[in-house]
């Protein structure tokens, strides 16, 4: 048997040898390692490359390490090792090797560019800029380097420097689409709408001219972001559609999802974010999903997504996006702060089934408050840090806005920076006005300002800020004379986004009717108490001005409930399991009603 197989395999070996031209060059890596001292640097690096081509990485590392020891003055082994690490996304190790090669004299274009890229991947933008500047001095016609440097200046908010590099670059090498797109981004950062649009359009035209659909998709996406930031929602949607039509990229879906979110269209936004998530290699889709879930009251899911992203230690993706680690963390902590605050409110208002359950709810609420406070504090600290970076680079509008966010609890300071930011932004984009009025209303706790902001929002595209204004307004309308407006505001908010109510401690004003068999006084009182605890102005009876909750208990003790709006149209309904014993069962019933009434599917 063994002999027969040997014969067959001998034939195979020949065939393989012929196919591959197997000779000394195709010798296995470890076999060649045995050649030992006779190896030259050439043969060692060649063997390492062969080992890499066979996925024998450990072997390759051993050979290259040996080569480094044997030929300490040559940078080649370090470079080969660095390339291996870079390909395997071990950027820290790659950087060490590239730097070692540089010290040994490897100062060519590729090595220096790789060093700058490693720094970029490791989010050390300043060092990356230093190298890119150096490369540009030595290779002044390198368009890629100009583009990379311009991008890094954008990421570090040094917009004037970025503009200068790119304008000079375009003058020198022509309006290449990479340069024009990055320049468009720089102008977008400077809030120079016309210039930004002009250069984005140039990059789109150039990409379409040569049929580079991927590039055109990215340029359209950037154009869409520009239009969105200047409140041109329809144009933004059109460019997003163009971007996705050019190439189905996750960022296109994210941009379109954000537009739908602005309209408070949960289903469309969710669908876009999920499409993005399926393709996305970055955590951005997860962040957007978390934000969407938070807005619409699915806080537990929002928490899980946000904490999943926060727990990730791989930040190399940031290099290709117009954000940095500090801003990324700032956004995550802000989101988590809001999520935990909402969870604390909901936990405190939760119908409970007894004293132990109540104590546990209070404890959970306190825990969520503390965690929420922690995240909010981190968010504020990051806001001040980001604001200071903007200030250093002369991006005053962004700096003042971040300073405002970082100082929100301190009214005097917050208002100072809010006004500074408002003056700059509304001068270039008057439509931003209502957003600032909303913020001022929140800080001052002024119902008048919040009402004023509400009247300024676009009723179709700006439902998201309108919902925020309503959620801030309702708690301020406490006195008797404001009751009708309070009810109206709650109903408006409910129509835009039912999920916003529970996390703000707001409940629908309800007229509760008990029908069917065997409702005892204690049961009715307990249910009303649970609804009130959840923020509802709930009374037994029929008030035509309110939402109605009708509960019908059947003979088998199941309860069928129906929620109707002020005009009597059914909004939600459900059936609970048999309700028998007092508090635990009523608590279960109330919980089911609240979850269903405020849910967004």
């Amino acid at each position, binding site marked *: 048997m063994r002999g027969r197989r*040997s014969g067959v395999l001998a034939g195979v070996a020949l065939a*393989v*040898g012929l196919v591959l031209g197997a000779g000394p060059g195709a010798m296995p890596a*470890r076999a060649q390692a045995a050649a030992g001292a006779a190896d030259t640097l050439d043969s060692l690096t060649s063997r390492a490359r062969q080992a890499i081509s066979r*996925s024998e990485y450990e072997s390759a590392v051993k050979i290259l390490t040996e080569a480094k020891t044997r030929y300490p003055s040559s940078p080649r082994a370090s470079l080969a090792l660095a390339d291996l690490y870079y390909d395997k996304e071990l950027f820290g190790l790659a950087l060490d090797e590239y730097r070692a090669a540089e010290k040994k004299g490897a100062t060519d274009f590729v090595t220096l560019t790789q060093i700058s890229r490693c720094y970029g991947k490791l989010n050390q933008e300043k060092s990356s800029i230093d190298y890119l500047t150096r490369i540009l001095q030595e290779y002044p016609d390198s368009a890629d380097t100009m583009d990379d440097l311009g991008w890094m200046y954008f990421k570090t908010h040094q917009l004037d420097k970025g503009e200068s590099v790119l304008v000079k670059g375009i003058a020198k090498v022509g309006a290449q689409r990479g340069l024009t797109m990055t320049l468009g981004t720089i102008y977008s950062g400077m809030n120079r709408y016309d210039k930004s649009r002009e250069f984005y359009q140039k990059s789109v035209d150039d990409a379409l001219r040569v049929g580079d659909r991927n590039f055109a998709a990215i340029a359209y996406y950037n154009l869409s972001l520009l239009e969105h930031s200047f409140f041109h929602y329809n144009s933004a949607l059109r460019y997003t559609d163009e971007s996705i039509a050019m190439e189905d990229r996750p960022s296109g879906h994210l941009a379109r999802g954000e537009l739908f979110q602005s309209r408070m269209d949960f289903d469309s936004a969710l669908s876009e974010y999920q499409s993005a998530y*399926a393709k996305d290699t970055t955590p951005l889709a997860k962040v957007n999903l978390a934000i969407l879930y938070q807005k619409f009251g699915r806080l537990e899911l929002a928490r899980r997504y946000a904490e999943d992203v926060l727990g990730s230690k791989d930040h190399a993706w940031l290099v290709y996006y117009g954000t940095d680690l500090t801003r990324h963390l700032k956004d995550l902590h802000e989101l988590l702060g809001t999520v935990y605050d909402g969870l604390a409110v909901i936990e405190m208002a939760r119908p409970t089934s007894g004293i132990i359950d109540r104590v546990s709810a209070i404890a959970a609420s306190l825990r969520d408050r503390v965690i929420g*406070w922690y995240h909010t504090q981190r968010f504020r600290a990051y806001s001040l840090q980001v604001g200071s970076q903007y200030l250093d680079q002369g991006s005053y509008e962004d700096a003042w806005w971040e*300073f405002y966010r970082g100082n929100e609890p301190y009214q005097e300071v917050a208002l100072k920076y809010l006004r500074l930011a408002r003056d700059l932004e509304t001068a270039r984009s008057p439509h931003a006005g209502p957003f600032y009025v909303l913020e001022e209303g929140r800080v001052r706790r002024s119902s008048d300002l919040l009402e004023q902001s509400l009247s300024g929002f676009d009723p179709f595209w700006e439902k998201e800020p309108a919902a925020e204004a309503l959620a801030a307004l309702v708690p301020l309308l406490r006195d008797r004379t404001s009751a009708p407006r309070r009810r109206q505001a709650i109903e408006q908010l409910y129509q835009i986004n039912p999920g916003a109510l529970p996390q703000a401690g707001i409940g629908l004003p309800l007229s509760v009717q008990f029908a069917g068999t065997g409702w005892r006084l204690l049961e009715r009182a307990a249910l009303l108490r649970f609804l009130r605890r959840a923020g509802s102005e709930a009374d037994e009876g029929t008030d035509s001005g309110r939402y109605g909750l009708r509960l019908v208990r059947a003979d088998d003790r199941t309860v069928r409930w129906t929620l109707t709006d002020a005009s009597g149209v059914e909004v939600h309904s459900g059936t609970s399991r048999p309700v028998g014993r007092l508090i635990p069962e009523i608590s279960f019933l109330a919980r089911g009603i609240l979850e269903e009434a405020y849910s967004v599917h």
Partner: protein
Amino acid sequence: MKARQIFLFILRNLVLYFLLVNSFLQLRDQLDPVFQSAAFLLAVLGALLMERSRMRILPAVAAAAAIPLLARVIFFLVFRAQRAIVSAPATDFLFFYFDKDFFPALLAYGVAWLFNFLSLRLKPFVIIETGLNGLLLVLVFWTQAGYTLTLYPHPSYFAWALAAFVVAEFFVLLLAAGRVPRIDARAVASFSWILVPLLLVFLLFLLSRYGDSSVRAGGGLMKPTMFRFDFAPYVRLESEIKTSDQAVLLFRTEGAADRYLLRRFVLSGYEDNQGFFMQREGGIDEYPAVVPDSSERFPDPGYKDRQSVRQEYYFLTLDPSSLISLNYPLTVTPLENWKSSSFLRVYRVDSRVMRGTAAPALVTSVPPMKPADLALYTRTAGDEQIHRLALQITQDQPGYYAKAAAIEQYLKTNYLYSLKPGIAEDGNQLHHFLFVSKKGYCSYFAFAMALMCRSLGIPARVAVGFYVDPQSEVLNFYEVRAFQAHAWVEVYFGNLGWVEFDPTSNTPAPGEDFAPFPAPDKDRMAQLIAEIVKNQTDQEETAPKLPAVVSATSRIGQEIARIAVLVARLWYVVLPAAYLLLLAGVKLLPVLPGLLSSNARRRARARYALCLVRCAGVGRGRRHGESALEHARRLGRDSGICLVPVADLYLKASFAPQFDAHDLDEGQAALARFADSFRTGVRLPWRILGAMSPRGAALRGA
């Protein structure tokens, strides 16, 4: 204050400060250590001053609460003044930066003040404080488990810090001993015998958690290091995984190209919160997961309807000790790896493999199985929803095989393959897969099928390894890459053995652009095949068969290693049990011969020795130079323990010319009085600690 008290005060606060510093480390990006230290110092000085001025407790609490609030008001007034003079971001942000540290500092302030005030005012509190400090220590380090020991650059620093904490607390107790009634230095020394093992147990627990979740970083199925791979011995359902196309191994088998499921582990254990995991003990065909050093034949279960298959494995990046084989391996033979080979490991496996489903399809009822095995392979978390779904899928299927096949088919056709199944709102990833998202990767499908089968009483387990497509065959060689890592289900069919079911869907979820099984890199494969072919004549078994005696020794060694692994795994049971056993041994063994003796004198002396052991345990032992009666009288005087009659009996037994069984019987009453007085004179916690203390061990009473 006396020097001893001052030293105690400083040492106590050092321990507290140690805890505070470690708490800060958790939030070192957020908090200013100077601010927190200042708050701590303020609390300590405040408590000291209040105690020195003999303030009553309630006013003291009110004053302690007012101090930080007052400090905040003063600071804010100063900040306002600063802003009025210079209005710049630096002065504007003072309010936020103060509050950022102020509120966390309140906790440190509160604990430091309370502990200091109470320990100065109520002397026994020092003892309670050590316990509370231990609790705080656990709380502070609790988040550091689960592969996240981030407070210290290396675990050894953590061990040193913990040792310093224990020593400091021990000295605190020693220094406090004289201040607290009925607690002397000996009692403290006894207590330390409990404290130290307890802390060690805690440390082991922490270190165990430290390594526990290291595989999570690998995406739930594979456990990667820098360049190598292996499987995790348990599988969790992750919300997202990434795959790599790195070549892992090559294997050769003769015959037409076929589909193979190469098995690495079988996961039979199931816990709701853990998922499926490798059962270390018991079960059916739970063979070793490590390639043996020499040729090894596993017991042949004699399964019917199976064919012999021989395979040779050539590992590229898989951990060399990992045993990969088909279901069911009979012989594993390590082969000599040739000099300068491209492969990390070469071995051959002869297996008995089932081809086709004709024989299992005839099985209509649950095959016989031992009750313990049946319990293991049908264990679920009792999930009603999954059970209902299983019933619904199989309601029209009459046979045993038909039910399992129906579940497999249902999952295959109604669910989608996805590397990003998403996050479950309630944390239950399997429910999310089955009832919400309906998409997942192989582990989801395997979990779902195994649990559905189990819920119907069909013994099933999850297997993990690699899926090998027939298309990857080149000249009887198959290349296996990391993305082929797979999970599937094995169902028990009695004398046919475990039969594989692969419920994973081949339909990708919408929008996910990936090719599930891209074609192999034939050029690279050809190079490796050429190397194997060239060196095949060198392939001999690693080691000749060992003489029987050596094999027996090896088996004993393996058995010892297996027990050691079991002991290490169950350390939380084994360590305390071993300690208690050892304690019982050293305390009771010296007196046991006397107690069992027929000689009345010896028995009386042994009984006295037993009483002495109990007294010594609670720090009431005989002092050097003290006679038996002096000791017994001192106990009666100081603690109310009635040892004098027992000591009298002991002396009589030792020195009286006459001593018989009648005297011994009379001594029973003395023993009963001792036992009663011991119970009333020594509180229960101290009696328990005394029983667990090794003090008094090896006393013979003479």
